[in-house]
């Protein structure tokens, strides 16, 4: 089976940092493809997902790369360095630079991302609004608000998680929260804060204390912030929007399911869940859809694997069989066959042993599987285990010559 594989297909593809997938118009299959882009999967792997023909995958990724939706590893040097600097643009002294966009590829749920963005929108407001308390809140209320918000916005909550462009924002949020708490919990500074805020209600909070400074944020950054805040003040609308999108993905998925286009169905339902994670109905359907999709996927893999095997391209065949095992964990025959390949082609004894054991567990009464496992044990120098399996094989078929020979050798 000829496999078209160029250098670019070895590259990993990831979503651009400022890409908001919710703003794209995609067909369900395109959506599925996009949902599989996680920064770890290579272009080549994406081509083999099966939802779209490989050529169509190429076309999609080329277009998306041009539009800046995705970044192809090793080609997006400029954009990457920009992304790496992104946290720094959120200036530490409280100035809010460009706000990050929602990003499903991060280790932060979209809810938290939205919460952070919503909170960032408050950072420009008077201190009591940052803390979410009334102007005349007492010390206890202020402390309670500060502790409660700290639990959500302290950077330690996101320790070592991939927070991408949100990293700087989280820190800025907490610092401003701390500033608000410190200034409002001290009666002296609080009086001053209130005087200043009354005099210039629109001024940035940092100007409230100390000597006058020029505004901390650029006009451009503020404009973007306004836009963002505008969007978030319609938070409900955003949520409804997402739910509507999720529903259309789900319906497309169910149609695909009825028409037995399993892979497409699985992709669409997965996307529906991504847009509306709280919907239990979607999650329940997903299990069924996924099982079907796995069957379908393994069918494709097995076909490719057998093709490669016939072409004597054993290394590829092994890889494909190995993938197929993942989708057909109940298939003893397949596990056994793959074990043999792991043993003979790759000499990967560990994997071979796992696979052979899987086969034996699934079908304990097949002598051949026992014998294979015994041979692998023997090769690995685990003689006692090898003997046990040879004996088991002979109990099943007392005439098994190879097992007899193996036992004699031990």
């Amino acid at each position: 089976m000829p496999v078209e594989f160029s250098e670019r297909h070895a590259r990993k593809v990831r979503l651009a940092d400022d890409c908001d997938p919710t703003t794209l118009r995609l067909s369900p299959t395109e959506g599925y493809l996009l949902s599989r882009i996680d920064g770890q999967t290579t272009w080549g792997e994406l081509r083999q997902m099966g939802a779209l023909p490989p050529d169509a995958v190429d076309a999609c990724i080329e277009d998306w790369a041009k539009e800046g939706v995705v970044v192809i590893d090793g080609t997006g040097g400029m954009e990457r360095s920009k992304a790496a600097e992104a946290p720094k643009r959120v200036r530490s002294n409280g100035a809010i630079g460009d706000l990050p966009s929602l990003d499903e590829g991060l280790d932060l749920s979209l809810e938290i991302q939205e919460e952070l963005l919503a909170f960032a929108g408050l950072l420009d407001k008077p201190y009591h609004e940052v803390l979410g308390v009334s102007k005349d809140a007492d010390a206890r209320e202020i402390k309670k608000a500060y502790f409660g918000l700290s639990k959500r916005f302290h950077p330690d909550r996101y320790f070592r998680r991939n927070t991408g462009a949100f990293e700087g924002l989280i820190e800025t949020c907490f610092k401003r929260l701390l500033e608000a708490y410190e200034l409002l919990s001290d009666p002296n500074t609080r009086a001053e804060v209130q005087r200043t805020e009354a005099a210039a209600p629109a001024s940035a909070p940092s100007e409230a204390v100390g000597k006058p400074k020029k505004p901390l944020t650029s006009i451009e950054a503020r404009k973007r912030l306004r836009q963002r805040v505008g969007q978030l003040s319609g938070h409900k609308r955003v949520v409804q929007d997402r739910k509507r999108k999720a529903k259309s993905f789900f319906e497309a998925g169910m149609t695909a399911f009825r028409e037995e286009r399993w892979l497409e169905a699985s992709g669409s339902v997965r996307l529906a869940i991504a847009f509306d994670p709280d919907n239990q109905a979607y999650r329940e359907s997903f299990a069924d859809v996924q099982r079907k999709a796995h069957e379908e996927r393994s069918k494709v893999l097995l076909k490719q694997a057998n093709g490669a095997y016939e072409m004597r391209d054993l290394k590829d065949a092994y890889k494909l069989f190995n993938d197929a095992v993942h989708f057909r964990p109940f298939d003893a025959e397949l596990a056994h066959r793959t074990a043999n390949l792991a043993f003979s082609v790759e000499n990967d004894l560990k994997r071979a042993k796992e696979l052979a054991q899987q086969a034996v567990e699934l079908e304990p009464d097949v002598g051949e599987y026992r014998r294979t496992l015994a041979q692998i044990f023997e090769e690995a120098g685990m003689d006692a285990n090898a003997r046990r399996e040879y004996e088991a094989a002979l109990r099943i078929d007392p005439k098994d010559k190879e097992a007899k020979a193996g036992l004699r050798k031990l």
Partner: protein
Amino acid sequence: MSRVIGIDLGTTNSCVAILENGQPAVIPNSGGYKTTPSMFAITQDGKRLVGHLAKRQAVTNSKATVHGAKRLIGRRFDSPEVEHSRELCPYDIVEGPNEDARIEIGGKNFTCPEISAFILREMRRVAEEYLGEPVQEAVITVPAYFNDAQRQCTKDAGKIAGLEVLRIINEPTAAAMAYGFNRTGEEKIAIYDLGGGTFDISILEMSDGVIEVLATAGNTFLGGEDFDRRIVSHLVDAFREAEGIDLTQDAMALQRLKDAAEKAKCDLSQRETVEINLPFIASDDEGPRHLSMEVPRETLERLVDDIVRGTLKTVDQCLQDANVGVGDIDQVILVGGQSRMPLVQQAVADHFGKRPHKGVNPDEVVAIGAAIQGEALVSEDDNMLLLDVTPLSLGIATFGGHFAKLIERNTTVPVCKSHIFTTTRDNQSAVKIRVLQGEGDIAQDNDLLGEFVLGGIRPARKGEPEIDVSFDIDANGIVSVAARDTATGKEQSITVNATGTLSDDEIQNIIEEQELYEVALKE
């Protein structure tokens, strides 16, 4: 994913804990003990021993047995603490190439982080044996007064021991975390930590798992050893009166007195009186002399009463810093071995008007708190959050050699603070920003962390330009400082890197050497 352990790396004993099925547990070593002596030794035939094994042979091999390395870690060789240890320790303390204190035993020169690493590696091994899996990550505790260099050296020790140190946290804070674990409601608590060499008091506030440090105070030269010294001089005086012999002239006798005093002190926490017997403590023309003396608890209490009162003064100062009245404290927690003394417990109870909390073991609570913080960092749930603080004040040197603090110690991190400074001469075109850390009012009493120059200031009368200096501490404790001329927008900045006494290369070399040794041990 491997588990995160909490290690209380103590001056005399160390302890390791972990969260198991959501419950904190102290891990006993192979001997069944929940704490392990912080001791390292090299035997005559070159064997390296750690913990109980090292302690057991300490009397016969005192010259090659290291204890109390924590007192030396991260300190300059010429500091008073090191000088003090040189007088007391039987092993050799020598000056290292970076003006650091090093320890020479068994014909080999060891850095302090290296010695601490032996202890940490042992604690790691104890945890690994218990868990049956490799351990790679840890939270380690240090005293609240430890400065940047001492913290960095402790981190380096962790690295040498093959551990990724997720955080270094303060011992009293860890104790508070252990207390606050799974506790709801609002409380203000005081942690009274009287250890072997130091005294610390911290006031914290907690509410539904969030812990905030309000204030800490302490005395780095006050601890259980002062109690020992009082007993020793009491014995010396009594012996001089009875026998006319001054025991302070004899180093060997002094060491025996010291050991006996420590033991008597511990025994007196359980018993009303102890007898100290030191046969052949001295001799003169008339033959050998023996010391035999009864010490009632009352005598000890009279001897150390002023020390205990002294700690209460520090407590009041700390309460004042925290802006909290003594009656506002809901719970008092005792930490450190010396807090077992009945007099201490009574004095603290009287002072706060309530009995200290009984639910924690003063030897284990710190390690447990460290394990809880480790879990809080890596886990997804949000049960516990420590609002950690910066241990020392940060600021810049100003005109006349003063120290202007921008971030006071005990400020919650991450944090950012700024202040406007100006020029001191007409037409001054540049300012030098010298970044300092410490508590002194005079610039030179503090540690210089780094410096830089902001130039290109437009000619103006003195006092007119506005230089906005901002300090930033991120969640990992990294400090960066920026200065901006508000007129021109010109900006200069530096990131201050905490430096221990070891370079990365040195650490790597030590790791490789210890690994070689590990292999050799297994053969």
